[in-house]
């Protein structure tokens, strides 16, 4: 068994990192939360981050944390979907198809919020003024984020990217076909 350093995978899948950070920033802008710094991509750990003021509304905090999960997932799926069909159903893919699948997987595999996102959400939720609903919604999300972060050691993020970009089209076709 060989070991591939995570940073190499992150570099190889940099489009997903940029989309992830851009999604954080756009969600901040949407909820009118000031942003102090954005690093879209760097060859270090973390590969990207957004510094922003904590949102006053806890649900907004949750959304800022998990926004990239939705955006990266949807974008990754939409980009890879039509390309996955010729490659995996017709065994007839061309270079453009493989490029789209690479891009789709890259974006989808960076959908998972990072441990930094979880910490940020944790800080926000443990404040005394946090409503019960926000806690009920937020803590499971934090748990899932940590589970995902642990799972990324076992390539869960890559598996997720492949599942979204390749598995989803296959599943939909077998269900609808």
């Amino acid at each position, binding site marked *: 068994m060989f070991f591939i350093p995570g940073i190499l995978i992150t570099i190889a899948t940099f*489009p997903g990192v*940029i*989309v*992830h*950070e*851009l999604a*954080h*920033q756009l969600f*901040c*802008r949407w909820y*009118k*939360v*000031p*942003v*102090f710094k*954005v690093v*879209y991509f760097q060859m270090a750990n*973390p590969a*990207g*981050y*957004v*510094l*922003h*003021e*904590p*949102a*006053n509304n806890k649900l907004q*905090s949750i959304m*800022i*944390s998990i926004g990239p999960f939705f955006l990266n997932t949807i*974008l990754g799926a*939409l*980009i*890879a*979907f*039509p*390309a996955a*069909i*010729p490659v995996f*159903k*017709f*065994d*007839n893919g061309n270079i453009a198809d493989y490029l*789209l699948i690479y*891009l789709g997987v890259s*974006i989808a595999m960076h959908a998972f919020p*990072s*441990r*930094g*996102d979880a*910490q*940020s959400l944790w*800080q*926000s939720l443990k404040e005394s003024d946090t409503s019960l609903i926000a806690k009920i919604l937020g803590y499971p999300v934090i748990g899932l984020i940590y589970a995902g972060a642990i799972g990324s050691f076992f390539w869960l993020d890559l598996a997720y990217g492949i599942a979204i970009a390749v598995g989803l*089209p296959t599943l939909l*076709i*077998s269900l*609808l*076909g």
Partner: protein
Amino acid sequence: MQEDLNLQQERTDEIAKCINCGSLEILSGYRNNLCAECRTAMINYPIPNWVKLFGVGILAVMLISMIWLPGNFKAALALSRADKAEKNHYYLTAQRELEVARKAAPNSIDVLADELIAAYYNNDLETVAKTGDLLAGKEFEDSIKLHRINYISTELRNYSPSDTFKTTFSKYKNQIVSDTVYRNYVNTHPDDDYAKIFLANIYMEKEYYLNADKLLSNVLLNDAEMIPALNDKVMVKRELNQLDSSLYYADKLLNINRESLYALSSKARTLLKMKRNKEGLELALKCLSLENNFPYNQATLALAYHFNKYYNQRDELLNRSGTDSATISYMQFARDVISNKVKFQN
């Protein structure tokens, strides 16, 4: 990754200032002291041009994907439906779905192979030849599919004369060859199933049905699923008035291909001959619903209408097909039965 920042407020006795520009006009009710201008500026934290360009690129790629999506999705659904149809031996449906899939993936080995298989069971030899040419020299990853293609190419040898057959009969060019000559050839070439079926067809034309039946049985002894022999058996058994046996062979064909137009229509004729008129009509109509331009079934349907006393529909069908050259010969049989020139039901 994102981090919430509660930027350290200056703990002095001085009046609070904007942490960005030092303005005294800070907006209250927020975690960080920021003036309205800085707050607005930070909410709209600038996105660098290269990131905007990158975003536009991603959106453009997504747009291209969305344009490709409907066509590819439709083709993939067609392939999926074809797979299911093929697994359940509905080869006509399979072939039609595969034609849709092939438009999106004209060079897909899997699609071509599946189309060849479906076309073979539908007796569409033109498509078999076309797809076979496109597949020539291609490598198959699917060993089961390869095995099926090899089986079909072996079977197809019985669909055309062997070199020996051609050489033997080339000397009879423009001459009428007697049955005896063909029978002698069959006797000296017991492995030539094409020759046996060829001779069986000559016997059928001359209404020597017992001889044809014997030859066809011999062919099926070697290869129980040989489609041309099974097709002929249904008709020969019907003509020999062995109607249950005719149904047996029709069902055998339908077991191979549940949408075999010939088997459905021929079975309908046998049912009509058994005076099971309603069932015969239903089957002929089922065949029509699968393919409305199958001349043999047009004639079967005319017979079915006739025996079910739907004379208007029968006459309409006969009139409609009167000018169609492909249907005329088949319809003549129906006309002969209707006019009692040929006795069909006992």
